[in-house]
C-alpha cells in the first residue's frame, strides 16, 4: 500500500509527474511554510530584542563598557603582535 502516486514502475514515465506522497496537498504545505516563515521572522526579532536587553542591562555602567572595549583593544593588539 502506498500514499504516494507511484504504486508500480511498470508504466510510462510520462504518466508519472510528481512522486511525492499525499499528492494534491501541495497548497497545504505552502500555507504551513508561509505561516512558519512569518513566525520565523518574528522569533528572530524577539531573540535579537532579548539579546539587546540583556547587553543593555549588563553594561548599564559606562565604566564596565569602557573596560570591555579596552579588553577587546588589548586582544586585537595581542593578535596583531602574534601575527607579526
Amino acid at each position: 500500500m502506498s500514499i504516494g502516486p507511484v504504486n508500480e514502475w511498470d508504466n510510462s514515465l510520462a504518466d508519472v509527474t510528481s512522486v511525492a506522497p499525499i499528492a494534491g496537498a501541495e497548497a497545504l504545505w505552502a500555507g504551513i511554510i508561509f505561516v512558519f516563515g512569518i513566525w520565523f521572522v518574528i522569533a528572530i526579532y524577539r531573540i535579537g530584542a532579548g539579546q539587546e536587553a540583556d547587553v543593555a542591562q549588563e553594561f548599564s555602567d559606562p565604566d564596565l563598557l569602557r573596560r570591555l572595549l579596552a579588553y577587546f583593544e588589548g586582544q586585537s593588539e595581542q593578535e596583531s603582535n602574534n601575527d607579526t
Partner: protein
Amino acid sequence: MDNEIAATRILLVEGIGILALVLALMAPLGLSLVTMGCGRFRNRFANLGASVLLFPFVFVVSYLFGWMFSFAFASGPGFTGGFQSAWHAAPWGDRLGPGFHQTESGAFSTDTQDFIRFVLLGWLACVILAGAVLERIKIGGLLLLATLLSGFCGSLAVGWGWSERGWMVALMGYHDPVGATTIATLAGGFALGVLRILGPRIASVDDSGQTHGIGPNSAGLVLAGHTLFLLGLIGMILASVELAAPVQLGEVTQYVAATVYGAPTDPAGQVLNLIAAVMGGLMIGSILTHADITRTMTLTIASVIGTLPASDFFNPLQTVLLAMFFAWVCGNARDWLERKFNLDDVTGSVALFGFSGFWGLVISGILLWGIPVSTVPAYVHINPFGNTTAAMILFWVLGFIPGNIAARILRYAGGLRIDRTLELVGHDLEVLRDVEDTTSAAYMREDRYVREEFQERP
C-alpha cells in the same frame, strides 16, 4: 537513437548540471566567509551566521512566491500579462521536486535545476546586501529586506533580464548570459539605498563626522572567501548554459550549448574570459595596492563582475584590459563613496558589485552593439541604449528605490538598527565567553593532572 539522445541529455543536464550547481554554491558561500572576515572580531560568528541564515530564508521566499513572480512579470514593460504561463511555478503546484515532468519537446523538465539556480542567485544578492550592512542591522530587519530583495526585486530582475522571454531582452536587447552581473547590480543599488538610511557604524566615525573604513579581522578569511566566490562563478557560468540544447539555426536544428536567451555559446570561452578577468584584476590590483594580496583580490571581484556580461563574446585580451579598468574605477569609487557620502560599506558591496555591474553592462552594450542576443528574429539586438537603460532600471528602480523605502519603513518601526550598546559590545560576547570558560576549565583540568601525576610523585 532516441534513447541515446535521452541518455546524453540526462548525462549533461542532470549530471553536469547538478555538479555546476554545487560549484555555483561556492559563490554565495565564499561571500559569507568574506562577511566573517571583514567585520570586527567580536562580530565574526554573528556575521557568518546571518549570511548563512539568509540561505534557508531565501529558499522559502523563492519557493513561495519569488519563482512564480519571475515568470508572472516577464512580459512588459509594466504588467502586460505573463500570469497564465506562471502557474507551473506556483508553490501549490507539483513541478518543483522529484518527478518526471516532461516538456513539450518530450524531454524531462529542468524546472528543479532552474529553481536551485534561482535560489543561489537570490542568496548571492542577499549576501552582497548583508556584507554592506554588517554589525549594526537587526537580523530580523535583514531578513525582511532579503524578502523584498530576493522575493520581489530579484525575481523581477531575473524575469525581465535573465530569461528567454524577458521584456528587457526582447525589446531592449539586454544581454547578461551568466546573470551574476544582473544580480550584482541590483544588490549593489539595493545596498546603497539601505546604507543611506542605516548610517555608519559607531566605530567608523571620527569626531568631525567623517567615516573611515575598518580593516578586516582576518585577511585570510577574506582572501579565501573571494577565491571561493571566483570558483563559484565558474559554476554559475556552467549552470547558466543549457548543454546540448536543440537550437534552430536557419533550416537546421543543431545540438549546441545555449545561453538562457537560447543563443549558441561557448562555455569554455566564457570560463577563459573569467580567468582573463581575474588575471587583469590581479595585475592592476597588485600595482594599486602595492602587492597587498587581500585588497588585490577584492579589486579582482570588480574586474570579474564588470566583464561577465560580455564573457561570451570578448577576446580574452580585451577582457584583461577592461578588467584593469573596472578594478581601478571601482576601487576608487569605494573610497569616493566613503569620503563623499560617509558610506560605511563593510565589504564594499556598492562599489565592487553595484558599480562594476552597472558599468559592465553599459560598456558591454557599447562593445557588443549589433550582435543578436537571441535566435528569435524579432528580438532587438544588443545596443548601448538598451543595456544602459536596463542597468539604470536594475540599480535605481529595482535596487536603490525599494531598498531606501523599505529601510525608511523599518527605521520608522524601530526594526532596522540594533541598540548602540549591543553594537559596541558585539554579538559574539556569549561565544567569546564560552570559549574563555571552556579554555579555563580545560586549563584547570590539565593543571590538576600535572599536580597529581608529576608533583606528588615520590
